[in-house]
């Protein structure tokens, strides 16, 4: 099912690779998207933006040196070939003047593949009508994002991997004055019924917030974290915690876990699960992504994420990890294994404490101690004897991963929620995560 972009890449890569001389290696990595962004505020459209964005990264390697140059594709073949040829010439002239790069690994032919996925969803103008029907009278704010994303990794050794997915998400919240409830909808096949049910559920949560607010004092509180809140904490693993290169370079929040001085709870397992299908099936070097890579299993550290360069530098075995933020290895498809806590028992098991659906702006407060801080956000409640009393004012937490996923972790929920990556900085991202809720004996709140 070769698409226009697949054929286009075939043409320009074939032409470009013909110009290489002996000892030269080139790989081409594509990110391409045709995106529809509808931004809502007060349930109306604030901005609509359609983006046709194609960029190609050319990695050149010769004589133990490498240089990566990314450039836009105009989809006009002569223009794009002229740009590629000009940058290649620039690199050839300048790179020999630099030192060799000891981390460089030779390019390999990691095979040929094509994967296509397509979700079914309404056009943007129809979607606007559906929002206005399902959220009539509500104050909704959020983003509808849809359209194809394409990734490819091609090299002069014969490798040609291509991935194309066309999907949507609607990331939103509804407000009643300062009170807010968060919603999210994405599916392989749009369902009016499910969308309407989710809208009703979000509006129902908002109605619970009408109860009188409860002022909760900072301190240690028994806490239930919903799946979105757990996902927000789990994101911190990608802030260099599971990267082997970061660990070797002195940024090591999980050092005690790795050296077994401290363990997480035996019910906690963190897995890089590319079988979730939220990603391309290859990394940015075109290497096949591991299907399942246990990172933390039953509370014990099993694997760091290791890419080819890190493996070469520290004489380790690569697990074909990709780079995320900070140019260090990161998970692309994160799973926390489910537990046994039934949805219907959450409030009863919480008893008296905090029920937190969302957290916000999490950062390390002391990475050496795996300590992090962040805020509660959206629909968060005080619960007494298994009954919701009322919404809380925002609280700041400051606690560490060894307590949150270790000594204080009582249970994880049976049911989990999947979230596709909603990040749209510079370009849309692939990947996502699947997370359960988590019940903690206590969590530390400071402000």
């Amino acid at each position, binding site marked *: 099912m070769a698409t226009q972009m697949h054929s286009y890449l075939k043409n320009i890569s074939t032409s470009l690779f013909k110009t290489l001389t002996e000892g030269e290696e080139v790989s081409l990595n594509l990110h391409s998207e045709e995106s529809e*962004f509808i931004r809502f505020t007060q349930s109306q459209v604030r901005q609509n933006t359609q983006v046709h964005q194609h960029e190609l990264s050319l990695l050149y390697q010769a004589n133990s040196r490498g240089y990566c140059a990314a*450039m836009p594709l105009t989809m006009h073949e002569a223009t794009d070939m002229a740009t590629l040829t000009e*940058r290649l010439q620039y690199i050839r002239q300048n790179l020999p003047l630099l030192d060799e790069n000891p981390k460089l690994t030779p390019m390999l032919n990691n095979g040929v593949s094509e994967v296509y996925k397509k979700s079914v969803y309404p056009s943007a103008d129809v979607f606007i009508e559906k929002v206005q029907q399902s959220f009539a009278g509500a104050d909704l704010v959020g983003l509808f994002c849809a359209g194809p994303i394409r990734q490819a990794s091609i090299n002069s050794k014969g490798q040609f991997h291509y991935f194309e997915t066309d999907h949507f998400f609607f990331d939103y919240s509804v407000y009643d004055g300062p009170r807010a409830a968060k919603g999210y909808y994405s599916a392989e096949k749009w369902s009016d019924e499910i969308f309407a049910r989710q809208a009703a559920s979000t509006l129902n949560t908002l109605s619970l917030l009408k109860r009188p607010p409860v002022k909760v004092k900072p301190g240690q509180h028994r806490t239930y974290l919903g799946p979105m809140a757990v996902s927000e904490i789990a994101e911190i693993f990608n802030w260099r915690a599971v990267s082997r290169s970061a660990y070797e370079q002195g940024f090591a929040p999980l050092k005690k876990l790795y050296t077994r001085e401290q363990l997480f709870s035996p019910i906690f397992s963190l897995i890089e699960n590319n079988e979730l299908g939220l990603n391309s099936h290859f990394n940015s070097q075109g290497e096949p992504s591991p299907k399942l890579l246990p990172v933390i299993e039953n509370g014990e550290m099993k694997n760091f994420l290791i890419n080819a360069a890190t493996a070469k530098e520290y004489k380790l075995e690569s697990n074909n990890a990709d780079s995320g933020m900070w140019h260090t290895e990161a998970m692309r498809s994160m799973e926390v294994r489910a537990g046994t806590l039934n949805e219907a028992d959450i409030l009863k098991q919480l008893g008296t404490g905090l029920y937190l659906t969302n957290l916000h702006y999490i950062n390390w407060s002391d990475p050496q101690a795996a300590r992090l801080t962040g805020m509660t956000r959206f629909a968060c409640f005080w619960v007494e004897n298994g009954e919701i009393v009322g919404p809380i004012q925002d609280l700041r937490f400051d606690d560490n991963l060894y307590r949150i996923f270790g000594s204080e972790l009582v249970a994880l929920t049976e049911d989990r929620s999947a979230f596709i990556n909603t990040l749209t900085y510079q370009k849309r991202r692939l990947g996502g995560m699947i997370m359960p809720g988590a019940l903690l004996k206590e969590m530390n709140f400071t402000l």
Partner: protein
Amino acid sequence: MQVTTPFNKTENIAQFLQTEFNRYKTSADFVAFKLVREKTRDYSVRNGKTEELNEFIDCGVLIEIMIKGHMGYGATSELSVDGIKKAFHQALEMTKKASQSAVYRFEKSIRPSVKGTYSTARTTRLDNLTMAGIFDFLKQTSQALKVSDQVITAVSDAMLIECVQNYFSSEGTEIYQDFDIIVHSMSATASNGQESQTRSLHGGRGNCIQAGAEYFQLDRALPECQQIGREALELLVADNCPSETCDLILAPDQMLLQIHESIGHPLELDRILGDERNFAGWSFVQPSDFGNLQYGSRMMNVVFDPTVTNELASYAYDDVGNKAEKKHLIKDGVLTAALGSLESQARSNISGVANARSSSWNRAPIDRMANINLEPGTETLDQLVAKVERGVMMFANRSWSIDDYRRKFQFGCEYGKLIENGKVTKTLKNPNYRGVTVPFWNSLAGLSRTSETYGSPYCGKGEPSQVIRVGHSSPYALFKNIEVFGGG
């Protein structure tokens, strides 16, 4: 179409876009094209060896279309006759449909009619720097950071950005702006086997300005490397910052973050209007607060000023052609104006500034910070220290977190100094502090008379999301009775 590449014949691309713009400029109530061409060289050297050698050339056009007072956007990197045609017609159709559900109907005055230019003040353009020249600077500084075997990671990296923008509109606007930007960071991580500590040049990527090739002076950088390396070693044997309520002096390379998070973001008018509630958050600031709220102590004067030479977010016009001017946001501690673009000003009737900015050609302009600066005071740093009976001085941001209304914050720094009886006594590691925005700024009790200028290349906001470059200059600032604490 004539074969041109995005960066070797820039004038051809601009001419081509002007021709295409003329084809479409009467096809809607208002039409504008913004062409952005940007070349970034991002090089990094670790322990004297190549870490990253990346270059990113970006080029595309943002098309603005107004239908019945609603502004919609199309964006494309397909800079061909057919590519522009496809982008324009898709955006036109979508904007017609979306205009039926528009949150606000604007007048054309949100896009002024102007002609003008801007260029970064520089002696030598950044494109004069060769790949080998940059690499050599980074290699030498990386090696100089390694002052001891305990320094296990010594990184010097530089992001050099050359950005050119053209903006044409159906109101007759023609703007050309070109920017040379440098983001240079150096850091040393020291380890004693038990723990590691990192010290850097003004924290992460805080050291960023508009400048030309003349910035890269080894004789200035090498002593900085020595100091960074020594201070990383100092931290390995330093005491933890105590946990107590005491006085706090923040250095300008931490003040940049304090200003950014607790002044800049809450004053963004689109946040106050609620556009960001699903993502970046709302604001504790209410429309009625302008002219009334005592945001901080009387010595607090904060300005929006894109006219400063060499600060990171300096420009002559914002991205919709509004002329940039210096304006007080907070005067003698009282909140006076918002960070609101012409669109937000129309929606709110609140006084604003020229701050409609987009991260590149593929995103619509929204209300952003530019240079947000705290004006200096009258004292020397020694005089500020002398006023402190017991306190902590903190340098260089390393951790940041604040709530979605921009009230409750907690920030961490790389390096601290204990102050006892008016004197600096010893180094502290893991210095952190927390507070609430308005009480915190009202505890401001002193400002040094000299400022330093930093910024951030990565201010995040918006749906779809955007990063924008912001500048912040600040003096040293003394705050009374702040909760500080250490690590562990």
